């Protein structure tokens, strides 16, 4: 059950509801990460994620047309086509994976895709630095 590396702590970035129920995360830099990662880098990641989620939920003409088409075809069109939201979620998953590989894993951190936590939190796992422990 325990992975090869020990989990030292988990930090949770909560949702930011100041603009309503849209999916946005707080950009406040948590104190636990101060020694691990640059504040700018962290805020950049969160801001990009926020922009991606805003794009997914944006009420654009494209989403409107998609909604109307779906209604007219009794929603059977989604058997062949992905919704706009799902397409953006895939983009987000790719972005998170890329960030993990380039930025977070070298620092002993791991970002969990918020969709796996019901879009409630961004979970950042801090792994123990084994070379210095015990």
């Amino acid at each position, binding site marked *: 059950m325990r992975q090869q590396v020990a989990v030292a702590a988990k930090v949770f970035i909560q949702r930011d509801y100041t*603009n309503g129920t849209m999916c946005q995360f707080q950009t406040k830099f948590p104190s636990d990460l101060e020694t691990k990662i640059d504040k700018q880098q962290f805020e950049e990641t969160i801001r990009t994620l926020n922009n991606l989620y805003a794009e997914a939920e944006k009420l654009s003409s494209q989403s409107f047309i998609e909604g109307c088409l779906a209604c007219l075809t009794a929603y059977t069109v989604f058997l062949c086509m992905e919704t706009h939201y799902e397409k953006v979620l895939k983009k987000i998953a790719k972005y998170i994976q890329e960030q993990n590989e380039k930025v977070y894993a070298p620092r002993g951190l791991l970002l969990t895709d918020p969709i796996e936590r019901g879009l409630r939190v961004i979970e950042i796992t801090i792994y123990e630095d084994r070379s210095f422990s015990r």
Partner: protein
Amino acid sequence: MKNCEYQQIDPRALSVSPQSAQNHADKKLQRPRRKWQVFPGKNRFFCDGRLILARQNGILPLTLGLIIVTSGLFFAFDCPFLVTHLTVFIPVIGGVLFMFVVASLLRTSFTDPGILPRATADEAADIERQIDTSGSSTYRPPPRTKEILINQQVVKLKYCFTCKMFRPPRTSHCSLCDNCVERFDHHCPWVGNCVGKRNYRYFYSFIISLSFLTSFIFGCVITHITLRSQAGKNIVQAIQESPASVVELVICFFSIWSILGLSGFHTYLVASNLTTNEDIKGSWSSKRGAEESGNPYSYNNIITNCCVTLCGPMPPSLIDRRGFLPPDEVISVAAASEVELPPFIPKSEANMCTQSTKDALERMLHSTDLHGLCPSGTPKTTPMVLEVLSAPETKELSLSSGCSHQLARQAVVDPCPPFSKNNRRDSLHSINPAFRLASPSPTLSRSVLVLGEGPDIVFSPQQH
């Protein structure tokens, strides 16, 4: 209601060969499980997790039945007459409306309304840390709220004790389904599901199309009877010739009032971007005179509000019903879910019960440092622990609860406090095989177990 049938586990068998039991447990869990099989809410799943329904869906067959019967009578008895006397488009329109109504209804019933998955143990612990609990000894701490600003308006977020998280705005916990649902509108018994963010548009299209259908059938039946009675006969004779029409008339007449009223009400809600929940509670109307200016979610434009609610992007289901459980989480989830949560799946319940009890017993066997009562690790379980600990001292010990007293002495929270009346369940009895039970009681359903493992999995008594 489904009940989990626990198999009796002979504690002596376990003590003899814990190793083989462990291997057996491992082998059994090789088969990957889907997440819907361990879903904690009161829902039913069909088609291997593709379709979701509330457990209490008693009236959905009635709704479907009424619609199908009324439409069937219409097509069988009224349409032939109307086709010959009026136009062939009448059954065509009726058919299209009927298909649309049934499709919307099924869509509303079987779609995930926007259920929020419950917080993981780590998240819940993190939230607890942020809230100052100061080790209170009351059974349940006062309801926790958090105030936030949305569009310059103060909104209170409540903490959900079941889902262990602060509910996002407009989210409400449905007690019938035991889930937090986003943009919770109401739980509709006619549809057999909650109506929330993801299926509100289907619900709306259902009631609108049903209004059209009932009005259409009503109008056609009136026309039918009028035409018959005009051809030289009186009304009574006309009715005698087509008795089914009267049935349809009665059903449609009573439905129209309620359905049209409901459609009108929901059109108003859609136009002002409110939910039934908010409207009933008067969340925004008490602030100022006009609801639109009080509602922080409204765009103050009817068209925009309608578009956002009905034609907005379709959010995905957050509960990932068909995903596979990662193998290392299966043990903990299976163990936690079976004892803590109400039974919810038709398949492999017995397997899970046996497995989870075996796993739980395994853990107790192997954990020598008993973190069971560690207050620092599990502040949230303090009320449960206190409740259980007081029980063995005060209540009479029977054979069935013999373990509780002895185990309490061992500073391990016992699994079988003697208070319950559910007689369909067997529960864990001996954690330590040193305590031989003569005859495990079949009547205990509540159990509290705190496992001495890192993740601090907590079993809590059922809330019924």
